[in-house]
């Protein structure tokens, strides 16, 4: 799982505002992509539709060939168990320890406590927070809180990882660390889609970038880079000649 296709996806709110307009994109399983654009460009709506927290007004979203736009309400939880989500404001439970926060997705699927412990510690180890498992989120720095959020998103080994402005509150160095973490998860086959307005940061990652503006896809850098690669090959060929 992890292959995503969006066909003619439009989202219009009851106010009449169109957050997404005829969006056609696809993401290969195991790929990594950045969504960028100004505030209000439609990045969050894009991710919300993928998470099925909202439904498109028109169009289809296919995940591994299955249309998830008309998914029954009773099936939604099982779909969401395959998706990890990270947010700018972490959504951590203030009264629960780091361990318990990360354990939430595993307890939802009814995993044995012994296995929960093992998986949570593995996830915390990946984000270098193993020694802080007993602390409350309030006792962590913003960057650490974000890493707890990431650990929670990946602890269930999701096929898709979505992140909405995960570095929004972080300094450049921490932001690069966080992005490196996403890259690591992508390297093990997770499809990763990160919404970020930090152009400088994402440009340096060398990954596909989709730019949204006014709800439309205005630029898809993977295609451009492919074109550029072709052109450079031609140039190299002519040089050799």
């Amino acid at each position, binding site marked *: *799982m992890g292959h995503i296709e969006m066909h003619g996806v439009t989202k219009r709110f009851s106010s009449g505002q169109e957050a997404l307009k005829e969006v056609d994109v696809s993401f290969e399983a195991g790929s990594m992509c950045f969504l960028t654009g100004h505030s209000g460009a439609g990045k*969050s709506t894009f991710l*919300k539709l993928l*998470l099925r*927290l909202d439904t498109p007004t028109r169009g289809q979203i296919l*995940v*591994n*060939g*299955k249309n*998830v736009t008309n998914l029954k*309400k*009773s*099936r939604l*939880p*099982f*779909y*969401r*168990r*395959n998706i990890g*989500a990270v*947010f700018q404001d972490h*959504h951590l*439970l*203030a009264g*629960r320890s780091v361990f318990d926060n990360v354990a*939430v*997705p595993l*307890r*939802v*699927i*009814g*995993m*044995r406590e012994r296995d929960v412990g093992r998986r949570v510690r593995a996830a915390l180890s990946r984000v270098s927070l193993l020694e802080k498992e007993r602390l409350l989120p309030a006792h962590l720095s913003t960057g650490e809180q974000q890493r707890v959020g990431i650990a*929670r998103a990946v602890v*269930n080994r999701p*096929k898709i990882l979505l992140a909405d402005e995960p570095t929004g509150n972080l300094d450049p160095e921490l932001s690069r660390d966080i992005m490196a973490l996403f890259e690591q998860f992508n390297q093990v086959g997770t499809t990763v889609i990160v919404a970020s307005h930090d152009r400088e940061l994402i440009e340096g990652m060398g990954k596909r970038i989709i730019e949204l503006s006014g709800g439309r896809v205005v630029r898809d850098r993977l295609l451009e880079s492919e074109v550029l690669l072709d052109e450079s090959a031609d140039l190299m060929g002519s040089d050799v000649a």
Partner: protein
Amino acid sequence: MSRKDDPFAQEGRSGLVGWGRDHGRVVREAMHHISARLATSLIVWLLVGIALALPAGLYLLQLNLADVGSDWDGRPGLSVYFKVDTPEAELRALAQQLRAEPQVQEVEETSSTQALAAFHAHTGLSDALELLEENPLPASLRAMLVSGATVPDLERLAAIAGKASGVQEVVVEKTWLERVSDITTVVSRLSGVLAVLFGVGALLVTATSVRLAIEARLEELKVQTLVGATERQLRRPFLYFGAIYGAGGALVALMLLSMTLLVVETPLSRLAGSYGATLEFTGFDPAFLLVMLCTGAGLGVAGALVAARQRLHDLEVL
């Protein structure tokens, strides 16, 4: 597409064991949540307890009044007075006829001679009676009905006696039975109405308490929704809250009732004794306790269901 690739295939991991494990964890969390807010929980238990105690108390009262109606010493009966000079054979014939009725437990015959003797024995007017040429007292009989006899039974027997030869008057002694029966009906209906009203009250109390518990755990519910909790999983802890609040309220109601019984037992025994009855309060038995606990828990769960459905339906995850 293989099962591994199916985006909806992870549901199997929940399974029956996972479901049981989830219940166990939720019960522990619910107990922890309630014990951590003991003062609030005590108030909820007290409110639910008071709401349940009143209809339950009236139900017990009605049950015991019905028993009183059947056990009263002054059980309903008939007194039949014959015309003066009616032959004793007619008295015996009617007594025989009444004894044959299944509702009649006992028939006491009093001939005019026996009535005169009793008059002599119990009054100081025997000299006055001696001045009369003949015995002015009529023969009579008294029929006592079996326990469980109803007012219509009494009326039917009175009609039989009234048609018998030589009968001057039939006095139906149904006053107590009717009163008790009327009081029982009033109490029964009142307890029915109050049970509905206070049941709704208990339901609303638990619904409000559960609603507050939901608000306190809103962030957690949002996170759980994001990571794939089903609606049932989201609702589950609150249904346990409702059950614990309801069952706890029922326990409080039972305590209130037993305290009330302790307080009123002595004066009630005295009152019953004045009517020749022995008070044996019935109905407050293990079956009643079980029904109360189940009713409390059921009302609590219903209240929680109302609150959870209403609040979780409007839940905005992001």
